[in-house]
């Protein structure tokens, strides 16, 4: 799936990954790929602008930490981010359920 198709959905997906715990950029992209069974195989670099946007919006925080002996910028979900994720989940459930109902194949 291209980054174009993920437009508008990348940020909540990143929030969902950070819900499991703090992570640095490479690990977030790795989780995104593995949790989607390889479907979300977008250019890895496109996740960083999204992370920066989320940080500016206050939904994630970040700081440099030592991971496995190497210094990396680690991102964490903030309280505001948890609330934003809850809201996006609710909206998505309603939206996807409505789309599924409309797209459902009717018996001939």
């Amino acid at each position, binding site marked *: 799936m291209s980054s174009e198709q993920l437009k508008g959905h990348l940020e909540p997906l990143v929030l969902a990954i950070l819900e499991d715990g703090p992570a640095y950029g490479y690990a977030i992209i790795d989780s995104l790929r593995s949790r989607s069974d390889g479907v979300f195989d977008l*250019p890895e670099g496109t996740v*960083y602008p999204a992370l920066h946007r989320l940080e500016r919006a206050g939904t994630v925080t970040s700081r440099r930490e030592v991971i496995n002996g*190497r*210094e990396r*910028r680690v991102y964490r979900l903030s309280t505001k981010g948890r609330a934003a994720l809850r809201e996006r989940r609710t909206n998505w459930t309603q939206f996807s359920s409505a789309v599924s109902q409309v797209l459902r194949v009717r018996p001939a």
Partner: protein
Amino acid sequence: MTGVERYIADLGSRLNVGSRGRARILTEVADHLDDAIGQRVQSGQPRDHAETEALDAFGSPHLIARQFNAEAGARAMRRAPVFTVAAGFAVFTGFVVAGTTQPRSATPTNAALATQMAFFVSVLAFQVAFVAGTCAASRALSVWRASESRGADRQFVRHCAVISTGALGVAAAGWATTMGLAVSDFADPNRGTLLLGGIVMVCSAGIAIALTLGLQVNPADVEGNAPDESSGLFGIGERVIGCVRRHPVGSCTIVAALSMVPAMSHAETTIAGALPWGLLQAATVVLGFIVLGPQLGLRRTNRA
């Protein structure tokens, strides 16, 4: 120079985000590529191959830089109306501070032609600044909460903000000149306040012009950026301009009528004296925006 170093240098040359932001981005990208290559080497790939694959997977420097630039441009766009509003407020305050302390003569006399001209130009410039500032704020607010903004919107806001602060500069300089011409007597006890007002006006407008010109809104769009039409309350400025462009005569009449109200409030002004002033002022403002509208990229509303 390794492939990663070349990539980082290429990305760095394309980023237009400020020195701190650039350093942070490049460090993060270098860290990421280091991890990506390390993992591939651990799984048995030769280093050269791992590096090429990691760089391909990361995306082209052009694509990544555009996304960061668009984000930085959106932040710059949000600052533009803040500068114009703050400068407008400072110039107006400076004018009020200086103007209210000027002694009023018991027997009003007509000011010198140079003073009248400077004042007239200042008032017009302030009106241009107000409308252009409103357009900038209107468009910026309409996309304020959107996670992404169109390059055309960012460019439009910057254009309006530059025109607004430039016009504020003209207004400030004109009013400062008016005050300078009015205070020919250096023994005037209010000269300190007049001086202060003039300095506040000119300095605040000058700072705002410099800040606005320095804004990098990076108008190049990220591919596939969805158009986000200005709508609701915050699109009202553009609707007003669209209306002025469709009905220039009617708009001119309304502005002329509104212009005469303050003119008529002075006891010494008659209808005959106020009418040409109001008409000239209204015609100049309306004509200015009919001419400037397309340059600013003002869109007509659907009914246009």
